[in-house]
């Protein structure tokens, strides 16, 4: 009995040694925020199918809504996943500073090539003291306003090119007895981010454009600087002008951001839509009602956020960034693959059939591969902006979390509730909370 047990152990350990030589069957755990069975989660998993077939490395994507806290617990317990996908590059830098991440250079990544492929700006978001830790992945487009061309045409409205034209159009719509803007910023535990997005878009187009935007994000100018105050005043014009937003000012903070555009698809007794314009990121069609989703690109489409004081092609966006926590050979192979041009093929061509609207951050990616015309158009926008270095990442994601996911959100919510007289206090409070 004892002899046979020892024999079994010996055989088992020999099998283990024999497998160790190739990467066949090695497992790589990839952990991120989009839930495992959500459209994005399935799309991410599908992008590794080809890779697994070729190399034998098994990449398992696991997503959790409580990604951040679960990951922290895993790191603290000394049991992190190989790769983690953060929705905010700021957190990547914080984790890098805490010493939990492995620099890309140690993983055998050619940094010059990486910078050239993903634009130095995007790579820089994952750098600490000039050492890149984060891998650029997918980006989305925020500087867009959704609208319904048919409703515009039938009333003789034209797409506003500038802020003043947009205000004039809004006044026109109010005068016609309708509501120009859909605006909802309620989001469980993150209420306020929509207003911060607006602020960022306005900041990119006022003051000194991208220069003052970068200064603002890096806190080289105070948060209550006149430039920022000017931007907040513009935003307040939208939020607090009587009749501009659906349901009035009170409704802004009560409306779930995913429901916010629904009034545009609803017709009242006179056949008028509930609103005409909705400034929201490229991922919002995922929240539309099903029949509205079918009209994506035809019935409902988007125009670029209008020009303001500084005319420019700047584009605001956001995206996620991965970083490596456990360094082994299989992980290096996966990293190599994720930085390659064809990594996004499966997601772009919608292999999983879930209709993911993710856009690759790789400048060399062929945008004609995207399955939907709307995504193609957005990807072209982004690609041009990335190549011209006028793409800017969501500023609040790059601020310290105390501000970017704390006071900036809560004070913008407060501003929406309290009205224009609160602008000064809001900005002063955010400035005070900057660590």
């Amino acid at each position, binding site marked *: 009995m004892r002899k046979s047990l020892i024999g079994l152990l010996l055989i*088992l350990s020999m099998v283990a040694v024999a497998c160790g030589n190739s990467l066949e069957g090695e497992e790589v755990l990839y952990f991120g925020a989009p839930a495992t069975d959500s459209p994005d989660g399935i799309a991410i998993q599908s992008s590794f199918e080809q890779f697994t077939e070729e190399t034998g490395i098994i990449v398992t994507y696991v997503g959790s809504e409580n990604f951040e806290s679960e990951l922290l617990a895993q790191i603290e317990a000394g049991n992190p996943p190989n790769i983690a996908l953060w929705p905010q590059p700021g957190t990547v830098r914080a984790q890098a500073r805490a010493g939990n991440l492995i620099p890309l250079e140690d993983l055998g990544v050619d940094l010059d090539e990486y910078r050239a492929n993903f634009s130095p700006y995007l790579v820089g978001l994952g750098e600490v003291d000039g050492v890149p830790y984060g891998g650029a992945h997918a980006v989305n487009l925020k500087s867009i306003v959704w609208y319904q061309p048919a409703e515009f045409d039938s009333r003789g409205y034209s797409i506003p090119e500038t802020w003043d034209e947009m205000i004039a159009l809004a006044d026109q719509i109010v005068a016609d007895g309708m509501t120009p803007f859909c605006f909802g910023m309620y989001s469980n535990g993150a209420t306020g981010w929509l207003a911060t997005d607006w602020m960022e878009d306005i900041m990119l187009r006022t003051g000194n454009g991208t220069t003052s935007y970068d200064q603002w994000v890096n806190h080289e100018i105070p948060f209550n600087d006149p430039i920022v105050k000017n931007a907040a005043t513009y935003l307040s014009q939208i939020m607090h002008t009587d009749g501009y937003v659906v349901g009035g000012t009170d409704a802004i903070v009560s409306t779930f951001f995913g429901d*916010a555009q629904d009034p545009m698809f*609803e017709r009242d007794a006179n056949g008028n839509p509930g609103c005409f314009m909705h400034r929201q990121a490229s991922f919002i069609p995922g929240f539309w009602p099903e029949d509205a989703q079918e009209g994506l690109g035809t019935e409902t489409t988007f125009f670029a956020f209008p020009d303001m004081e500084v005319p420019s092609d700047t584009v605001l966006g956001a995206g996620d960034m991965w970083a490596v926590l456990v360094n082994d050979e299989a992980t290096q192979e996966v990293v190599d693959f994720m930085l390659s041009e064809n990594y996004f093929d499966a997601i772009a061509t919608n292999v999983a059939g879930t209709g993911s609207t993710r856009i690759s951050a790789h400048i060399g990616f062929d945008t004609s591969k995207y399955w939907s015309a709307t995504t193609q158009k957005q990807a072209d926008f982004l690609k041009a902006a990335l190549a011209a270095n006028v793409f800017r990442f969501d500023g609040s994601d790059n601020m310290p979390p105390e501000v970017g996911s704390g006071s900036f959100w809560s004070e913008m919510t407060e501003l929406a509730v309290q009205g224009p007289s609160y602008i000064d206090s809001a900005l002063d409070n955010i400035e005070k909370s900057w660590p």
Partner: protein
Amino acid sequence: MSVKSDSNKLLVFGVRVVAFSFFPLLWFLSQAILFREITNKIPRPLLIFLAIVVGSTFIFLLYAGMNRIISYAPKNYQEGLYGAMFVGPAIFLLGLFLFYPAIRTIYLSFRDKWGENSVGFDNYTWAFSDKIMQITIRNQIIWLIGVVTLVISIGLIVAYVSDKLKKGEAIFKSIIFLPMAISGVGSSAIFKFIYAYRPPPLTQIGFLNGLRVTGGTDNLGNPCKNNIFENGKKIDYVNDGCTQPIGWLQQRDLTKFSTFENVRPDDTLMSWFSNFPLNTVLLMIIMVWMFTGFAMIVFSAAIKSVPAEITEAGRIDGASEARIFLSVVMPYVKSTIVVVATYLTVSVLKAYDIVFVTTRGDFETNLLAVKMMDEFSKFLHFGRASTVSILIFVSVVPIIVLNVFRNKEENSL
């Protein structure tokens, strides 16, 4: 003689120390280190096999070894030591997984963001001076008082009344008890629909807003309804004069209600009332709804144990029903009330799921447990997160101490 017994005591103490801490520690550490080292090196089936074999062998060795050690102790102490032998590992594990984390949390609460440098009492100053923390503590107090009093009073009344029912007591009680069977997340999701808000002109799917927008007429005399089609014509609520829906969970005060719309600042009473934190109370009601059934069942059992002779005697003496309830039934169920109150207090201090699912702490609805997780995972501030958890811990302690004293009192009676 006395020298001998002293050395005996010393020996017993030595054996106790070895059996209680040294041996389990050795046992635990050897396995922890062994499996830590081999986890990523050998295939999983082999690992599981090893864990079973090694784990059970070690436990056998642990007890065999302790048995051996105890056999060196004097005969008349051995029985006690054998008892301790079985408790020893449990106490050791309790210490490892309960006391060690507690002490480390206290330590971390005096450190900075990543626990690197000491910051003295800064985190505690922050806990009581930060505006959001103050509101969180306020909410916690509202919940404590609100949930405990409401659950106990409603539970007691329902239990007493249902006890008097001639028919259908079981069905009545099951209905009240039903929410107890639903998880906290489930209940919160149900209530989230009750409080739901959608921007006009969408149909209101929330129960409260559905009621709110239905009824009345607009300024032109047309009826207001929740997007109902009548004879092919849509009747909505968007015209001036109809009541507009509100986001219930976003109302931090009552200023959106007509009674409080034009409160003068000098009207102290009314402006105090208008600051009523509506959303916090609405969330609190979810917990009341969940726990009333539990309180009712416990009280019902207590009320049933009141001897019928006593209430009968009271009735013959001409006491009213209220009088009987207060003077006869209440003294009998007093200790049950204390037990339920203790349980509720601890549950409220731990309450996390309701706020997490509904508002996640936005609009001044936060509770300490959610705030603790926010500081940990959102703001990555380990020091502050630890401080908040210490606050929760400290507020539970008096209740536990009280309970221990009460238990002792009852035992001594």
